[in-house]
């Protein structure tokens, strides 16, 4: 009992210390910056140590020629005289224009970290399986058992029921990578100092684009037939169905990207807003009100963190499941003889 109380106290202390450090440096006018915590940054935050990230910019000069500019940080980009700081954004001096901004940002770093984590995780398991552990004997160790739980879950509950049996194993590498990648990125985003890579629409759009491309390239004859020549409807309706089906083609990956992005971002905003109540009350009604609200806020945030841990895995599962469903819809050959056959034999 005493042990448990001590742990709860330590957690509360840790939460209060870490949050006060992060917010103490914010500007005076607003006690918290909600959108600033979900936005992308030009530095990598590690235990409130800010490591600046390189800026890579393709710049178009006023004379019309372009050049590739590489700087160690935003600060050195401003010092070089080519850029100036306008409301926390880089603006080129001398009437130049930024053509493409290839800067490495915090979301990109966490995207890479997530994929590196997947690579380490899977190559560790591969080495184990090629040694025969888990093939002839039982899987050994915590990591391999966790790998097997996730892999079998994706294979037996996501890929095989939704994609045609003979073809499902061909899509397993992609589905497993997407699941583990999104799960790692979501879980990394739960670290108090970290950025959630999946709370960025560009990251989720890249994942959705991969699903879209794979779906189109694995489309069977029936799939394209359904889009351009819908079977079983009158001739006029066939032409009417073409734009509808084409829009449906594009909304699927769009919904996929928006769903993951909005879920991860709303979770992050919710936690910042509830913790931010402490600072708002502190500003409006004095320190006592701030301490009073902190009891409610910290308890609420702790519960939300458990919910977010669940949501992190659930959203990775939903993304993978929907990817599998879309791919499965594309690879399916449903000739009408086969349907007839199934109907006869299942009855």
């Amino acid at each position, binding site marked *: 009992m005493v042990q448990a109380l001590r742990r709860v106290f330590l957690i509360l202390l840790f939460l209060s210390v870490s949050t006060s450090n992060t917010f103490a440096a914010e500007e005076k006018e607003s006690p918290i910056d909600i*959108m600033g915590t979900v936005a992308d940054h030009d530095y990598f935050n590690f235990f409130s140590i800010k490591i600046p990230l390189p800026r890579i910019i393709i710049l178009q000069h006023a004379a019309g020629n372009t050049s590739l500019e590489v700087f160690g940080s935003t600060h050195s980009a401003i010092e070089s005289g080519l850029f100036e700081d306008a409301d926390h954004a880089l603006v080129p001096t001398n009437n130049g224009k930024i053509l493409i901004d290839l800067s490495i940002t915090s979301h990109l770093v966490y995207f890479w970290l997530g994929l590196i984590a997947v690579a380490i995780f899977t190559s560790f398991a591969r080495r184990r399986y090629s040694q025969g552990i888990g093939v002839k004997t039982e899987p050994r160790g915590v990591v391999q058992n966790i790998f097997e739980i996730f892999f079998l879950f994706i294979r037996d*509950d996501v890929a095989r*029921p939704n994609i045609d049996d003979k073809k499902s194993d061909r899509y397993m590498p992609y589905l497993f990578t997407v699941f583990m990648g999104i799960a790692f990125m979501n879980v990394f985003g739960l670290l108090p100092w970290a950025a959630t890579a999946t709370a960025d629409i560009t990251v989720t759009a890249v994942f959705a684009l991969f699903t879209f491309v794979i779906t189109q390239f694995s489309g069977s004859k029936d799939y394209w037939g359904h889009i351009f020549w819908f079977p079983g409807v009158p001739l006029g309706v066939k032409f009417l169905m073409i734009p509808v089906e084409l829009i449906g083609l594009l909304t699927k990956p769009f*919904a996929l990207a*928006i*769903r993951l992005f*909005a*879920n991860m971002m*709303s979770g992050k905003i919710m936690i910042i807003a509830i913790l931010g109540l402490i600072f708002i009350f502190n500003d409006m009604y004095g320190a006592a009100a701030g301490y009073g609200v902190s009891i409610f806020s910290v308890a609420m945030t702790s519960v939300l963190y458990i919910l977010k841990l669940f949501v992190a895995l*659930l959203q990775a*599962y*939903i993304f993978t*499941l*929907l990817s599998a*469903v879309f791919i499965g819809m594309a690879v399916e050959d449903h000739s009408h003889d086969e349907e007839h056959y199934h109907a006869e034999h299942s009855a």
Partner: protein
Amino acid sequence: MEFAYLAAGIGAGIVAIGAGIGIGLIGKGATESIARQPEASGDIRGAMILTAAFIEGVALFGAIICIILALK
């Protein structure tokens, strides 16, 4: 414009109502069918999550538009 904030607030509320009704109906259907046929609970749970994800997607479209309005 202040009206953009008003629209965002009302919109977010309506989105929440719609998604709540939809997901509530799914939960009702799923629990009823699990009660009738407990051995099919695995399949029903999968279908429930999938359908709820679709409704959530539509609701989040609305929520995103509300965020865009509020940040305008």
